């Protein structure tokens, strides 16, 4: 049990810091979909190891494995002989679990509330577009395009942006937003946003949130170029970046345009297999450590 606990603790630390940092520095966008799966595996495996470590160390003195350890915890006799430090570890495990699950729930509620308010405003301030599918037009000089996910997901484009884009570029923008909506990219970001809020002191959570936010843009670009010319999308991105005052947009815009300038990477199948194998291994490692009594 002590060996299991130590291994889990090492895994938790590695997943909380060096692994996300290394992955972010690798800046791989060859296959964004599987890259995102890898981030999710890191998040889940990290959380599992962290909570598992606390439970394993708390139950180690009286249990052969975490299974018997958890069963033992239901036993009043076992509970009565627990030391103060065992109680502390168990409370930490419970609080951590509650914090992670709770923040996911509260983040979902807050997102839904914000979106409802936003949809009400959009309905009053925008007109349905005659030219573009599932798109609403906002009369505003500020150049902006975005999508509002949800049951009645829609794309919103300002007149300020429409004026500077050609017809082909407008279609490309809408195709990109439609991809976000169709594949529910908002749900992929949600857990990372929630965990970043729950554990802001764990550097992995903000690194992961940033990487995932960028990855969904590459994913939407990949989907969009299946229905519109990649060049039109790249031009739309450049034009938007040129008229957009937000300085933080420039690096992502440049990276996306550079990616669209070339055909989809040939290596993406190989990278996908590698990423998926790595994700499965990451999830299996803490699961096996927790479940396998042989490690006791």
């Amino acid at each position: 049990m002590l060996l299991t606990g130590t291994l889990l603790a090492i895994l938790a630390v590695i997943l909380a810091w060096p692994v996300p940092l290394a992955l972010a520095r690798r800046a791989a966008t060859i296959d964004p979909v599987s890259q995102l799966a890898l981030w999710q595996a890191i998040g889940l495996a990290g959380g599992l190891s962290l909570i598992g470590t606390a439970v394993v160390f708390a139950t180690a003195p009286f249990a052969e494995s975490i299974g018997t350890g958890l069963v033992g915890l239901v036993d009043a006799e076992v509970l009565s002989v627990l030391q103060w430090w065992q109680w502390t570890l168990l409370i930490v495990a419970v609080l951590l679990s509650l914090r992670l699950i709770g923040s996911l729930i509260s983040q979902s509620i807050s997102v839904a509330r914000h979106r409802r308010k936003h949809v009400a405003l959009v309905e009053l301030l925008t007109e349905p577009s005659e030219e573009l599918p599932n798109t609403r037009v906002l009369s505003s000089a500020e150049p902006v395009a975005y999508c509002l996910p949800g049951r009645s997901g829609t794309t919103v484009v300002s007149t300020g942006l429409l004026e500077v884009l050609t017809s082909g570029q407008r279609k490309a923008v809408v195709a990109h937003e439609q991809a976000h909506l169709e594949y529910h990219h908002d749900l992929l970001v949600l857990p990372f946003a929630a965990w970043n809020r729950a554990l802001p002191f764990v550097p992995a959570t903000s690194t992961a949130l940033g990487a995932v936010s960028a990855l969904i843009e590459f994913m939407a670009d990949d989907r969009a170029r299946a229905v519109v010319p990649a060049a039109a999308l790249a031009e739309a991105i450049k034009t938007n970046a040129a008229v957009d005052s937000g300085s933080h947009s420039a690096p992502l815009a440049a990276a996306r345009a550079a990616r669209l300038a070339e055909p989809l990477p040939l290596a993406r199948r190989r990278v996908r297999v590698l990423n998926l194998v790595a994700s499965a291994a990451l999830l299996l490692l803490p699961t096996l450590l927790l479940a396998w009594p042989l490690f006791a």
Partner: protein
Amino acid sequence: MATLGELERSVMNALWNTPSGLTAAELRGELSDRDPALTTVHTVLTRLEKKGFVSRDRAARPHRYLAVSSREDHVAELMTEVLDQAPDRQAVLARFLGAVSDSDTAFLSSLINRKLIQR
């Protein structure tokens, strides 16, 4: 429901154009091209009041309805929400040109440099 949304928009446009406010009957006149029943106008106004876009002057007979904020203020409110730089807002809505934080800027610059080297 789409028609109700359109009616709400028309009612708001009429109220935004008349800052002194309008009665339900006057509003119905403004919407003559759609010719809604007076009860429909009342329904729309009640909905808008519940959403916080319209206030009612109950002292006047008949009640006068006023827009709570100007159209420009509402657009500004919408834009603030959209242009918010916080990355966790991406779960609420996704901008075409999403904003990234400073740490991601480093990550993306390395990506661009790498592309340039590869060429």
